[in-house]
């Protein structure tokens, strides 16, 4: 543990996140009136003959953070990846049912997958910056969509890095390789890269599982900032994290056929304090999973 970590721990701010679940860490304003941004209806995903998701329904609300929790292999990532059709890339993957973004079904015929992926950005489990400069990492997306003017790109890069709370740390070394940053900085760079194309929804697949507690805290704080402008869906194995950051929580589990199912979906404080389903209660209290 380095000195910085220790100092932060001593302040008690970080200590609380590592000792016990604390749902008062961030101010929650789960908003039941928020419009539905992503609507999943009876979604089934198959890998070959294997049914990975068995009829999932989920209404992700706008400008809210929705956490998907559940034991390993219950289809959390599969569900998340159906939101930007990353499942298309898996050989043998088939999708039935509906995922709609602002009411438009992503799986309807004639939908441009490029357009979906611009509107639904993604941050992965391990930081995966391109082996390019910090600047080029962030500018990659805008360039894809035809932004060529230097001044425009510079503005986008600066704004994205600021939104990802990374600007102050890298503004003097934008030409350096993205790989030269620390793990936490790399992950924020990946967030900046996703923000640069101004998505409406950001998917995060265990974004902090490869990071140390301080970097994790930074990512979580950042998520609170981002939810003002974006709808966030996060998959996490870390129950405390789900409790800390999210407004809504979806609990998933596999059934007897090893297919993933949605067990319960509600406001986070309800899921963590008075869940309706016994299995959810067992899971969030750490009795299994």
């Amino acid at each position, binding site marked *: 543990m380095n000195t910085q970590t220790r100092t932060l721990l001593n302040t008690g701010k970080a200590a609380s996140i590592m000792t016990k679940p604390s749902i008062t860490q961030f101010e929650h304003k789960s908003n039941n009136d928020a419009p539905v941004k992503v609507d999943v209806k009876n979604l089934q995903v198959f890998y070959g003959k294997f049914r990975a998701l068995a009829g999932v329904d989920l209404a992700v609300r706008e400008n809210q953070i929705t956490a998907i929790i559940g034991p390993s292999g219950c289809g959390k990532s599969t569900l998340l990846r159906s939101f930007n059709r*990353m499942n298309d890339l898996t050989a043998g993957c088939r999708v039935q049912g509906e995922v709609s973004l602002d009411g438009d079904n992503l799986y309807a015929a004639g939908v441009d997958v490029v357009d979906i992926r*611009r509107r639904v950005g993604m941050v992965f489990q391990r930081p995966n910056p391109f082996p390019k400069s910090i600047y080029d990492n962030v500018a990659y997306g805008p360039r894809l969509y035809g932004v060529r003017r230097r001044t425009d790109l510079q503005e986008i890069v600066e704004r994205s890095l600021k939104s990802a709370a990374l600007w102050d740390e890298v503004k003097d070394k934008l030409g350096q*390789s993205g790989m030269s940053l620390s793990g936490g900085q790399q992950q924020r760079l990946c967030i900046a890269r996703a923000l640069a194309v101004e998505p409406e929804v950001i998917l995060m697949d265990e974004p902090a599982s490869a990071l140390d507690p301080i970097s994790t805290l930074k990512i979580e704080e950042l998520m609170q900032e981002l939810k003002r402008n974006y709808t966030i869906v996060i998959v996490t194995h870390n129950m405390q994290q789900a409790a800390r950051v999210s407004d809504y929580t979806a609990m998933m589990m596999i059934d007897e056929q090893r297919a993933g199912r949605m067990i319960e979906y509600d406001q986070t404080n309800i899921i963590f304090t008075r869940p309706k389903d016994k299995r959810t209660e067992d899971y969030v209290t750490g009795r299994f999973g």
Partner: protein
Amino acid sequence: MTRFSEVLKRSGRMRSRQRKIANAFMLSLTAFLTALALVPLFWIITYVIARGGQYINLDFFTQLPRPMGIAGGGVLHAIEGTIVISILAALFSIPPGVLAAFYAARNPNSPLGVAVRFSTDVLSGIPSIVIGLVAYALIVQPQGHYSALAGGIALAILMLPIILRTTEEMLKLVPHSLREASLALGAAEWKTSLSVLFPAALNGILTGFLLAIARAAGETAPLLLTTLGNDHYDIAQIIRGGLQTHQSIFQIVGRMLNQPVDSLPLTLWKYAQQPYPERINQAWAVALVLMIFVLSINIIARAWIQVRTRRLQG
């Protein structure tokens, strides 16, 4: 009942000494064999320098050969020929090799991907003289004359499997997560290949190019049947002559490529079997130049790759 700890107690001391002796023996054996493996390299380098070094001078690089039995002259024709043939071979082999590697790396289990990999392995096992013979039948015979072009194509066939396999391996080493990151931003597959996979694998791919070129530059057998040799090949003269007679750039380049040329290994082979001591000495000097040429390709490649790697990793 025997307990393991008792056995260990009884034999422990002896075993520890045995182990130390065995360790020392094996360590010195590996060190000795490592040194032995280095002997041929240093032996070849020092011997070639000792035999050929004294015959290298400026003329050697700037002059055409003198008639037999007359001292002096150089191997400018062979140096230029080697460069021309190598460039041709690189131009013919790199684009198809790299593109095929992208396909094979992306679709390893498709029928075509499997076929590409299998035929590459077969191709790399074909003796180079056979490739030379095929190039002779397909290019030299119909054209009616030997040419740098035919040699370039023969060497390109030789380089193709090296380029294809190294590029494919390097592309496979690029983490899957980088591809995903690019695709998740909405990039098309080709765009991802071009602007993420290719740059990420570039160092390894370039090493493959240079290794392939170094390999081809040292080949003799296919050139015997395709470029033949040409004591009067002089690019400067071809250009001068072309300009004087107002030829177009295409005609000049055509003349450069469409006539017999020499190369360093070919010259070495021819000089080494001649009765004149000057030629034999020059053969050693050619060997030295060829060695330096190939070694410097390797060294430049590695140095450049190191600079690039350092820049990428910060």
